[in-house]
């Protein structure tokens, strides 16, 4: 259970999040939509512990643990996974090596035995097959020379292997063609279950046609302005943020 209460954060001197409240129960998928600069990515980064953000008020707990007090890797071990909007290139670092190192770090944190190369490859290949990824993706350097779509699929592969209990997808659909979008969505849907929850940050309705959320929230000016079911996304698509937000103000 993720509980965000009245969370405020700023970048340098600029307030971005201004009292955001959101609860995500196990098994739920929440979509967060909102105009540019509304604080969507800031929320993803503050929750995952990126440097450069100062939390000025409020709290965020995950399963009762103060998330904001943990190092980024401790949050990962606690089950939080961030699919990056701009996946980072690691020259010279093999994808398989990176993923196995990450998986073993998390397994170690859970007191589970580490996987050797053979065990790991078996697991990774099975996930890749499901995601229709070519085998050579494991041999290449992390995200180096990957197309935009390959980078996003690589994020989903990492999620599939690391099996987080809470995933935050930060505009994972941006730059994807329709086939890649479907593969990414299938990757997320395959994880759905009572133990898995996700926050899907997106600009577009089309991703939510494939990953049908339980809740949709509109984030603007650092706060959740409106919440609703999947139909809210359709409303946004039809009348735009301005229309939906003015309605919120009127209400």
């Amino acid at each position, binding site marked *: 259970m993720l509980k965000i209460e009245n969370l405020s954060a700023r970048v340098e001197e600029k307030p971005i999040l201004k009292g955001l409240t959101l609860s995500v129960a196990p098994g739920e998928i929440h979509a967060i939509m909102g105009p540019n600069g509304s604080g969507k990515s800031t929320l993803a980064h503050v929750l*995952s*512990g*990126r*440097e*450069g953000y100062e939390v000025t008020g409020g709290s965020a707990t995950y399963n009762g643990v103060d998330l904001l007090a943990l*190092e*980024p*890797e401790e*949050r*990962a*071990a606690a089950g939080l*996974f*961030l699919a*990056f909007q*701009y*996946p*980072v*290139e*690691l*020259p*010279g*670092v093999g994808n398989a*090596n*990176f993923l196995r*190192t*990450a*998986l073993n*770090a*998390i397994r170690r*944190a859970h007191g589970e035995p580490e996987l050797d190369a053979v065990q790991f490859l078996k697991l990774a290949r099975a996930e890749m097959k499901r995601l229709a990824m070519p085998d050579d993706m494991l041999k290449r*350097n992390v995200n180096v020379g990957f197309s935009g779509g390959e980078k996003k699929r690589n994020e989903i592969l*990492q999620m599939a292997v*690391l099996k987080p209990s809470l995933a935050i997808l930060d505009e994972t659909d941006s730059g994807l063609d329709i086939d890649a979008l479907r593969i990414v969505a299938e990757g997320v849907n395959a994880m759905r279950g009572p133990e898995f929850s996700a926050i899907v940050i997106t600009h577009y309705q089309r991703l939510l046609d494939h990953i049908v959320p339980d809740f949709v929230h509109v984030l603007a000016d650092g706060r959740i302005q409106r919440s609703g079911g999947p139909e809210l996304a359709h409303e946004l698509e039809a009348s735009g943020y301005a229309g939906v937000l003015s309605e919120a103000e009127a209400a």
Partner: protein
Amino acid sequence: MPAVAETLDTVRTVTGSGYKWGFETDIDMDLAPKGLDEDIVRLISRKKKEPEWLLDWRLKAFAAWRAMEEPTWAAVRYPPIDYQDAHYYAAPKPKAGPRTLDEVDPELLKTYEKLGIPLSERAALAGVAVDAVFDSVSVATTFKETLAKAGVIFCPISEAVRDHPELVRKYLGTVVPASDNFFAALNSAVFTDGSFVWIPKGVRCPMELSTYFRINARNTGQFERTLIIAEEGASVSYLEGCTAPMRDENQLHAAVVELVAMDDAKIKYSTVQNWYPGDADGKGGIYNFVTKRGACRGARSKISWTQVETGSAITWKYPSCILQGEGSVGEFYSVAVTNNHQQADTGTKMIHIGKNTSSTIVSKGISAGHSNNTYRGLVKILPKAAGARNFTQCDSLLIGDQCGAHTVPYIESRNPTAKVEHEATTSRIAEDQLFYCRQRGLTEEESVGLIVNGFCREVLAELPMEFAVEAQKLLAVSLEGSVG
């Protein structure tokens, strides 16, 4: 079995059965008096029961050294070295050093643990296996018999002087002359041991050769001298690993390595250097002033240097190739890591003399803390080296904002048909790379290790397998505490 482990194993065997190589009669005589003069040079030569010609050679080197000035052109700074305040000869005393691991500095043990060195080997490395690998007396050499069958000679150089004087005399000082430079001259005057390798014509050495050098005693300089000769069509891969315990004082290490490759011969020389770098404030550490040079004398011969330099307070080292034979090939692959207050000025010289000679230089410098890391390289194409080619790539990686990286390439081309390429980059470990790794569950240190190993991959790929694993771990350990 990893070569290093083999060596250590052999060392343990030797330790168990007392000394095998020399010095039995002089066991009580462990240190020459401090200071350096002709008498000390004579003493060393006498202790080693050397022939007259070698004593003469040493004395000439000593005379040359006395007339020389310590070089100051490198981008390293250190207080003046008092060459009279050191022992130039140290032979081991049995049962010196700690007896059990409990007596060893826990910091040192932690480092070994992080390196994943098995407990038994940690003991040997920490000097518990009494005199396991000691100053001035060469490490026991491995698998002598197998090598003998192949006709390969691999022994301490002092033994080679005794048993194969004609070979030593023919090649010693022909690549690095006794008066080549200040530190080489000092080494020539007082060298105490090192390795000698001779691979006969057409023989491919049946195993990787390795020597684990170690400085154990206090206030001793270490002056190994290594000579490797590959005759026509021969090939050999030689590994050198170095480590040293922590001492507050600075210790001088001035080695000389000479390689000679005849027609179609190949020599691959790999180093993982992890001498004590000094503490976080820059106190203590090894001064590593080393002259390494290979001569590709024969046509189509090849000499390849691979080095991973993580230790030493100061590294001054330029493994070089003289490409004399037509179509000969020189390679230099280097990773140099500096952290805290370490200083490294390292690189290579590729001297193209013969036609169609080619050389490749790949240098990866990593600086962290308050350290300074300089790549200094010379590519020289002489007038007769028609068709010579060189490719140089120098990459620097900075961690933090207090360190320095410098690239000083010299290119002298005196043949218009030569082709010389140079590429250089400087980058920083980006905050987003670190965060990406940490978000996936890696600690900050694991993340740095992973990114740095990725940065160095082209060089690490040149190392023999077992060394590569050790080097990877070493890189991560060397950079601990460098971020955050």
